[in-house]
């Protein structure tokens, strides 16, 4: 028995836009991305939407469904209220290119500034030795699929529009994955404090709640980074030592 649903989708670019309603027939297990594909095939092939894997592994199809940033490939239509249109909008935090597609290039730009893994024996070809228990927490961060949903819900980036002072949760866990790598020898503390702006995060944990990979971004990533910064720069004893030692 075929049921129908209505989707109310943003159509337009960054300058102007409107919403348009589309009615499609559902099938068992349908996700919002399936519905978008039906619209493209049957109603309007010019409806723009990013996607790749359709299995929640690539993080391409991020958009806002009924006001909540989601992966379209993971959002079942039968979990959404049936008595109202499903509202699908592009991510609010980034400039709109067209319809559901945003310009997320800022994320790639800030990523370039982060110093990668740095080993003490750079240039050697010896196998690395690390215990599983020591890489568990790094592996948690490396589950990130770069869907940028955390960037989208971050108040600093979304509401205050302060991309100039904060790299956002995605880059915080990238930094955490490097800082907590058992064999990394780089010191990124100053960078994390001044350039990446870890201090402005006020730990509302919205990023953690939205993460489709269930990474504990705030507790396991951002807070430990804040502690490192605090230890280095705001611990009174260390502050004194730095002053005595004549370093900043």
């Amino acid at each position: 028995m075929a049921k129908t649903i209505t989707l109310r989708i943003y159509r337009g670019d960054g300058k102007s836009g409107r919403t348009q309603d589309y009615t499609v027939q559902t099938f068992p297990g349908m996700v919002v991305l399936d519905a978008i594909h039906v619209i493209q095939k049957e109603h309007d092939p010019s409806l723009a939407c990013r996607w790749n894997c359709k299995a929640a592994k690539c993080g391409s199809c991020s958009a806002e469904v009924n006001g909540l940033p989601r992966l379209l490939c993971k959002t079942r239509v039968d979990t959404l209220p049936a008595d109202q249109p499903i509202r699908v909008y592009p991510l609010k935090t980034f400039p709109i290119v067209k319809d559901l597609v945003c310009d997320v290039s800022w994320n790639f730009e800030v990523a370039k500034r982060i110093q990668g893994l740095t080993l003490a024996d750079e240039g050697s070809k010896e196998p690395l030795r690390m215990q599983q228990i020591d890489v568990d927490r790094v592996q948690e961060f490396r589950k990130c699929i770069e869907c940028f949903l955390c960037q989208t819900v971050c108040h600093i980036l979304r509401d205050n529009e302060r991309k100039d002072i904060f790299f956002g949760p995605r880059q915080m866990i990238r930094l955490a994955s490097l800082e907590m790598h058992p064999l990394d020898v780089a010191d990124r503390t100053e960078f994390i404090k001044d350039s990446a702006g870890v201090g402005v995060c006020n730990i509302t944990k919205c990023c953690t709640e939205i993460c489709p990979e269930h990474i504990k971004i705030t507790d396991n990533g951002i807070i430990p980074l804040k502690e490192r910064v605090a230890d280095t720069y705001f611990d009174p004893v260390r502050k004194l030592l730095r002053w005595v030692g004549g370093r900043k």
Partner: protein
Amino acid sequence: MVAKYETFEYDVLVIGAGGAGLRAVIGAREKGASVGVVTKSLLGKAHTVMAEGGAAAALGNMDSEDNWKVHFRDTMRGGKFLNNWRTVEIFAKEAPERILELERYGAVFDRTSDGLISQRAFGGHAYRRLAHVGDRTGLELIRTLQDHAVRLGMDVHMEATMTRLLTEGDRVIGAVGYRRTDGSLVVFRGKAVVLATGGWGRMYRFTSNSWESTGDGLVMAYEAGAELLDVEFMQFHPTGMIWPPGMRGVLVTEGVRGEGGILRNSSGERFMFNHVPDFYRAETANTPEEAARWVDDKKNNRRPPELLPRDVVARAIYKEVKEGRGSEHGGVYLDVSHKGEAYIKKKLPSMYDQFLHLGDVDITKQPMEVYPTVHYAMGGLYAEPETCQTSLPGLFACGEVACGLHGANRLGGNSLSDLLVFGRRAGEAAAEFAANEGHPPTPEAQIEEELEVLMRPLSKRDGENPYEIQAALQEAMQEGAMIARTEESLRATLETILSLQKRAQDIAAPGEPAFNPGWNAARDTLFMLTSSELIVRAALERKESRGSHWRLDYPNEDPFWAKHNIVVKKEADDISIQPRPVPEVPAELKAILGEGA
């Protein structure tokens, strides 16, 4: 029409930013070349992220008996000896070094108790050989390569689709295409060009491939005159999801079977024991008890029949369903629930998640329903083993778009190490080629021709819907050119393709060119139709059953075809399809192959 376009110039142009493309970038950068890389999607979203199981390399961390010779033998045997032996030799020897190097770039693989890289068993590999990270190894690879390539410096052109290679005589000197974001024409000039565009699988209805896998890389090279090899060999991964409809074709990792997953038919029978070929009987468990013991003790037990090579398992599932022993939705059951909830959540977290949220199946309690899905293209561009140079000067190919490593059937885990080994070699060789060459003038006529093809659908108000043509093609390929093929089914499929090619001349995709999926699909459809035609024509030619190519009307291996690849090449306006002898394996390597070589 006079073409307006922006031009970029690089020593090395890399088309495709999956694992192979990014490793090629690193190789070329380390040789000092300037590099531009073009990708149809955002950086880090390529199909490599879908790889789950692991990267095969004879590190010997789990089983010290393992070495490159065993990996060489396994890969040749899996490929039914249609592989290029030299490609396989280089691969098996270099894969361990490439994996260790990746670790130094920042990859964090699962560890052994000694703190080394842990390795997992996989179908067709004699020893535990796959370096892995849970069931997200592909993501680890692509993110690591992405970060390292960014570190070395490259120009990334995201969401740009290349649709034609530019040539001067035989030599490939660049590519032209459009930016998806604004629809503008863009030209890239490369003293050398690395094609790393991945595979093609969208022409089938059951596919694990994304929208990107439309065969554009293969067809662009074919149109430019490059030699293609063995395109009849498409790998059908035995276990794709079959239900719900929106998830059809999405992969269920071989890791499920590696962790002890059991295949059953509708009567509850563990049917794989009935499908063990003689060739593999000696190395396969002959009781469920032995198969169960193998999961925890691999040294003293033989592997379960579920882990036979992919072609064998896919055919067995096809037969079970065909003979009326299929599951509710036309597949078979894959059950791992006996391993218990904690174990499954630890070892197969994304599978657990995928089925629970998208399939309404709790795999810790219920079986999954699976059916073979198009997964990988073994065939592709002929590539020199050492340099990855194709038959065209200036054009290098690596990763899935290239051919030579996998023969008639790829072993799971070999593609991730393939893209590391040959991505590096292609990038380095391209940089060396570029060092001795200049930029020939831009061939304006070629660009204008391509512009005409690209723009035609935009200017039409009424015409064919590209998605309808794609759907008709998928139906025909699924019915006539998938797992089980006959002369009749292939001929019928070819007829359909040829008539769809006529209809495709009339595709309309009105609207603006800026981020217009319908317009993009119009050009993709042409690539899908040409690549399908090449697959079917080559499949008609190979009158035998071997590896993934199963002809019901020629059910046995044939001594002539055992020693011949099929070369497909464009000749004037005709398609040349010719057998070519497989390079003879030298005596010292033949000794490694042992029985069956």
